[in-house]
């Protein structure tokens, strides 16, 4: 059974880009171990000869013409929910110190 450690959870929090409080790290260490323990019942299931299911519609290669369509949205309307905008661009914090 998967027994996660605090370090595992801290590593996941970095991968997922979510800081966690000490309390959350403790909680998730226990809870994730329990939940992963539950899903490990799949380990013993015989799936010889079966392929994974990636989708259920049976649709393949849904294509459209490569053409510009005007949906009538002004760029400024689409930017109205952006926290920081400068010159019609999304502004972010510096990436490297």
């Amino acid at each position: 059974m998967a027994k996660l450690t605090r370090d595992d959870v801290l590593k996941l929090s970095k991968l997922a880009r979510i800081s966690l409080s000490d309390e959350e790290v403790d909680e998730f260490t226990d809870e994730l171990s329990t939940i992963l323990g539950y899903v490990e019942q799949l380990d013993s299931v015989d799936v010889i000869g079966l392929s994974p299911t990636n989708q259920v519609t049976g649709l393949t290669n849904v294509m459209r013409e490569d053409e510009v369509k005007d949906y009538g949205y002004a760029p400024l309307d689409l930017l109205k929910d952006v926290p920081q905008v400068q010159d019609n661009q999304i502004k972010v914090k510096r990436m490297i110190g």
Partner: protein
Amino acid sequence: MATWEPISVIAEKVRGGELKAVDLVEQSLKAIEEAEDYRAVIAVTADRARERAKAIDVKPKGRLAGVPFIAKDNFLVFGAETTAASNILKGFNAPYQSTAIEKLEAEGAICVAKANLDAFAHGSSTENSDFFTTKNPADPTRVPGGSSGGSAAAAALGLAPFALGTDTGGSIRLPASFTGTVGYKPTYGLVSRSGVVAMASSLDVIGPLARTVEDAALVLDVMAGKDELDSTTIDRDPINYFPLTINDSLAGKRIGIIKEYMGEGLQPGVKQQIEQAVQKIKQAGAEVVEISLPSLPLALAVYYILCPAEVSSNLSRYDGQRYGYTYAEAKDLDESYMLSREKGFGKEAKRRIMIGTYVLSSGYYDAYYKKAQTVRTKLINEFNEAFATVDLLLGPTAPEVAFKIGENTEDPLKMYLTDIMTVAVNLAGVPAISIPCGTSDNLPVGLQLIAPQRADRALLEAAKAAEGVLA
């Protein structure tokens, strides 16, 4: 509790000038205000609704002319914020509307409010809403189910003639069961999800919550069909989903009662109601046989690998940069991601992102994600084998009636188990419906009917016939 005529009748009367859209909107807004204590609704779209109603009354047309409805707050709708009941999207004003909303509006329907949900639709009770918990109209000390709990409560309270929900692992059917309403989960791909907050894209569908099967069918009929903005959409049935013919819809039908759903873990009161329903369905001429899908007990484990995996991927877009909450004091981009997401996401979203990140991470992908996808194939094969011998499958929607607010919040795994009878349907992409089926301890019980992929019309007809004999 407000009552409404059948949706098709309301629309006909609006078209004929006998009813006014403006009055219907006021009736709905008044009902919402009076039922405030149930906390079904996050926000009303009153101004826009009133404007639209006035315009519709000038020249009433459409199959849903003047019919008010309530959308789960994960649908992009004009006139109010779209939050998905999450702090990270608080303050978000959609720049465009969901295709489903556009289609309903094109037929004259009017959105009056946004319904509460478990944040990002993660949950079975609405207790994971970052804002508040919705109360069950049948007993306000109990949950309405989730994640479309606000929509189900709205339908049960008659706040509008119908509400919209989304169903990834049972989020329409479970709250329908807990509140005594009708909840329809269409075949995967039948309704466009463009403009709906994505949860687990290989499982998510949109559907109606209503008071009757007929009302649900009409709403589905308006929403169904291909959409160039959602490349997973499939063609609609050449025969429409409304109106339904119910002549002998149960006579001669072969219905399989699912053995795995009738055994251990099923509340005796729920079992009794389902067994009584089976008797009535038999009396209506259907042949009911017991059928086994041996892998069904594995469905929840498959779901709780695939769903968090897809959630962790879909929720990566909430990064604090493009929309939604941002932690302004962060010193660089990475810290902005880390802290915006820490403060913006609630506990369940974080929990699912963490599980998803784990099962997709290098070294674990094959053991968890790929294995789950392969067991999913096994399950789909069993559904196909079952539907080779029966027309429909039948069972309870949930193993229990609505539980008390707070009863399961300390134990995430126990909460997940609420979905044990609904998730398999999403994994297989087949349509299913929950219809009211009596009560146990005065709390509603839901009967679930399941059909093969794309057999939505046949399912709705059988459900309407069953609704008739169960009433």
